[in-house]
C-alpha cells in the first residue's frame, strides 16, 4: 500500500442524517442479513455494503433521518445483533454526536470497497459516494506530496 506510507492519519465520512453501521467480526451474509432487516423494519429505502477488511463491513442506508432516529436505528441493530464492535462504535458516535465511517486506508487495511447494493440509491447513498470520491481524491493528492 503506497498510500499509507505518507498519510498516517485516517480520513472519514461524518454525518448525522445518514444511517451508518460498522459491523465487526461478522460474515458477509450476517452483515447483509442485519442490513436487510433494518432496511425493512425502518423503511430505509435501500442500502450499500462496503468491505472494510476481512469480516469487517460498513453499511450505508439511503433514507435521510434525524439524529435521534439515526441513533434509534443503530441502537436497535446493536441490541439485536449482540455485536460487541457495533456497540462500542455506537457509544463512540453518541459521545461525539455524528456517525463516522473510514474512507482512507489504515494500518494494514485498504480503503473500504463496495461489495453489495440493494434498493434505491439516489438519496443519502449518492451523497455518501460523492463525498467518498472527494476524500479518495484528497488521499491520492496527499500521498503524492512529500511532507518531509
Amino acid at each position, binding site marked *: 500500500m503506497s498510500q*499509507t506510507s505518507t*498519510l*498516517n*492519519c*485516517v*480520513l*472519514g*465520512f*461524518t*454525518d448525522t442524517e445518514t444511517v451508518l453501521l*460498522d459491523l465487526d467480526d461478522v460474515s458477509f451474509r450476517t452483515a447483509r442479513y442485519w442490513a436487510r432487516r433494518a432496511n425493512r423494519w425502518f423503511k430505509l429505502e435501500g442500502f450499500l455494503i462496503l468491505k472494510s477488511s476481512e469480516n469487517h463491513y460498513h453499511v450505508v442506508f439511503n433514507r435521510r433521518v434525524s439524529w435521534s432516529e439515526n441513533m434509534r436505528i443503530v441502537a436497535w441493530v446493536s441490541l439485536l445483533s449482540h455485536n460487541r464492535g457495533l456497540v*462500542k*462504535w455506537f457509544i*463512540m*458516535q453518541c459521545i*461525539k454526536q*455524528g456517525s*463516522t*465511517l*473510514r474512507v482512507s486506508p*489504515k*494500518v494494514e487495511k485498504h480503503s473500504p470497497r463496495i461489495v453489495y447494493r440493494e434498493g434505491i440509491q439516489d438519496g443519502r447513498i449518492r*451523497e455518501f459516494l*460523492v*463525498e467518498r470520491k*472527494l*476524500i479518495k*481524491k*484528497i488521499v491520492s*493528492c*496527499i500521498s503524492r*506530496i512529500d*511532507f518531509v
Partner: protein
Amino acid sequence: MVKKIAVYGTFETTEHVKQRYWKVRKDGIKQRYWKKTTRTKKVVKKGRYEFHGSGKDLYKAVVKAQKIVPKGYIDIPAKDFLKNPRRYGEKGTWIESDIDS
C-alpha cells in the same frame, strides 16, 4: 452542498514538562503546586478534526492538518481552520495506529 470530513488518529507532539513543588501556606498546611517548566517532552496523543465546507477548502485544510495536529476534538469550518490553524492545533506528526472511527 456542505461536506464534512473527519481527520483522526494518533500523533506525536511536544508538551511542556510540569514540575511539582510544595509550599507551606500561612495557615501551616503544606500544599502541592505545579509549575510549567521550559523543558519539553515528546508525548503520544489522540485527536480529531471535523472539517466542513467546500471541496477546495477541505482539501487545503486536510493538507494543512498533516503538519498541525489537533488540540483535542475540533469541529470547525475548513475556512476558519485555514485562517488560523495554530489556534486549533499544534505542531506534530501523525503516527500509524489502529484507531476506531
